[in-house]
């Protein structure tokens, strides 16, 4: 439905108005991060002011910020790499050597996503405590890997399905082993798909805020938990909170903009194309 340029003048106006309204809270936080603490709570609110980087400097000098940011990076990258390592062979087998049970296996994998986290909060908390994984990065990496695995398998499966079978068959005739076929032929062809799957997994892990709030206290706490610690009434640190928040969301915002198309596919399990 790529209609010709609309002649109704109010459509661009309305479109931009809606976009700006929805984006405004993010914009306002970003602006606030460049204000002094006094200016951040000034009445009336200031749109024009002398910008300062002092909040970013203040956040940087608090060494703990980097611990939280580093935790976020390690946990989301770790979970993404681990789930790719598990998912790529599985998706390869399911898309090129399907059996009668392949479809039901895939559906069953997706159905594990329907288990509400809160339903197993107690068992997971106790398991983590007993195994010494409470408040460790490894603990969260394991959980995020398992949470995202169904989506990652499904997305890579759907990208592998798009690779023409003939290419692989030709290669197999030349005597390529399964490993060679997967790594040297299939992976390069499906690389864009694998990349956007990885982005989605990073986005989901980075923003996850149920397990990170409940299973970490300090050592392994990622940025979601760090930001949550500002919820107690510290009204006069808004500018610093804004600076910390801006840094916490900036990379993911960019990843999201880059991968919005594939995101639809991943988040709806391909039910909407």
């Amino acid at each position, binding site marked *: 439905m790529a*209609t010709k340029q609309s002649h109704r003048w109010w459509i661009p106006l309305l*479109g931009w108005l809606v976009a700006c309204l929805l984006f405004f809270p993010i914009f306002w936080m970003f602006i606030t991060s460049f204000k002094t603490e006094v200016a951040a709570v000034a009445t009336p609110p200031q749109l024009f002011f002398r910008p300062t980087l002092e909040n970013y400097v203040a956040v940087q000098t608090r060494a703990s910020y980097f611990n939280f940011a580093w935790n976020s990076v390690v946990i989301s990258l770790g979970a993404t790499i681990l789930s790719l390592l598990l998912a790529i062979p599985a998706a390869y087998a399911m898309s090129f050597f399907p059996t009668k049970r392949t479809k039901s296996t895939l559906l069953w994998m997706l159905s594990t996503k329907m288990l509400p986290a*809160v339903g197993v909060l107690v068992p997971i908390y106790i398991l983590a405590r007993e195994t010494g994984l409470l408040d460790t990065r490894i603990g969260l990496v394991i959980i995020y890997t398992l949470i995202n695995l169904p989506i990652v398998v499904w997305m890579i499966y759907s990208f592998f399905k798009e690779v023409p079978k003939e290419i692989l068959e030709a290669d197999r005739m030349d005597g390529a082993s399964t490993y060679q076929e997967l790594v040297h032929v299939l992976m390069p062809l499906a690389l864009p798909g694998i990349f956007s799957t990885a982005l989605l997994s990073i986005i989901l892990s980075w923003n996850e805020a149920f397990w990170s709030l409940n299973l970490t206290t300090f050592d392994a706490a990622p940025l979601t938990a760090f930001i949550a610690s500002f919820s107690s009434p510290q009204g006069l640190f808004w500018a610093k909170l804004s600076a910390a928040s801006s840094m916490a969301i900036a990379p993911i915002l960019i990843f999201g903009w880059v991968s919005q198309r594939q995101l639809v596919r991943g988040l709806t399990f391909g039910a909407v194309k």
Partner: protein
Amino acid sequence: MTSSVATRPQQPPPARARSHRSIPARLLVAPSVILLVLWMVVPLAMAIWFAFQRYNLLIPDNREFVGFANFAYILTDPTLWISIGITMILVVSVLAITIGLGTVLAVLFNQEFPGRGVARVLAISPFFVMPTVSALIWKNMLMHPVNGLFAQITRGLGLGAIDWFADFPLLAIIIIVAWQWLPFSLLILLTAIQSLDTDQMEAARMDGASAMQLFRFVVLPHLNRAIAVVAMIETIFFLTIFAEIFVTTGGGPGLATTNLAYYIYLKALLEFDVGGASAGGLIAVVLANIVAIFLMRSVARNLDT
């Protein structure tokens, strides 16, 4: 295409070769399946096991089998029913807002206008903001009764200020969650609209259909399935809204924003009542499964086409 079929060697491949292949294939799927089975079965079995015990982490020695006592206790606890009611209000109202507005916005962003790409990117951005950040932006910078932007604007207009989290706490949570998830439904529904057949639209327009008629009889029926998918995925997430409540109201004032997830969290990690929290968790699992059955059915229909 035809030539490649013609030159392909004798079909089908020998049975021996195929079985030789299928053994490693199964091995490749096994790790993922085994891990997910463990992830499903172990915690759920533990939850069921705990749900039949009196077990408090603060007095771990006083642990015994109590049959259905936890369920009896939980199910007669008025707080549980209040929290289920609040969960329902949250789910239904955020669904109504995101899908209603999302459909309208999807139609809007399907029109071509200057800078549409940038406008769309701005509009979907809230979805990528981590829940704790978006909750705090709204709580501190927009809805704060003294220094928040809303209060400053209404006070500037001489209307006084609203203390959102004291006077309309549930509405405040609904607004925050709706802001986060409107971009999701917009993105999905926009994708669905773009797959609409242009010819069909043109034909309807030629026949003199008005814009409203076009929307009602062509666009909306096409969106049916996408709307169903959005509703079900969102429901799964909205059933267990947690971070937004944790950061802003802490379930209060009173029980005004205590949903089922928060109720279980209070039981588990503040009262350390393992038995009671597990029983509550199982109730959440049953609720989510009712929704999941419908979701899986609609995904299954579309898989592998």
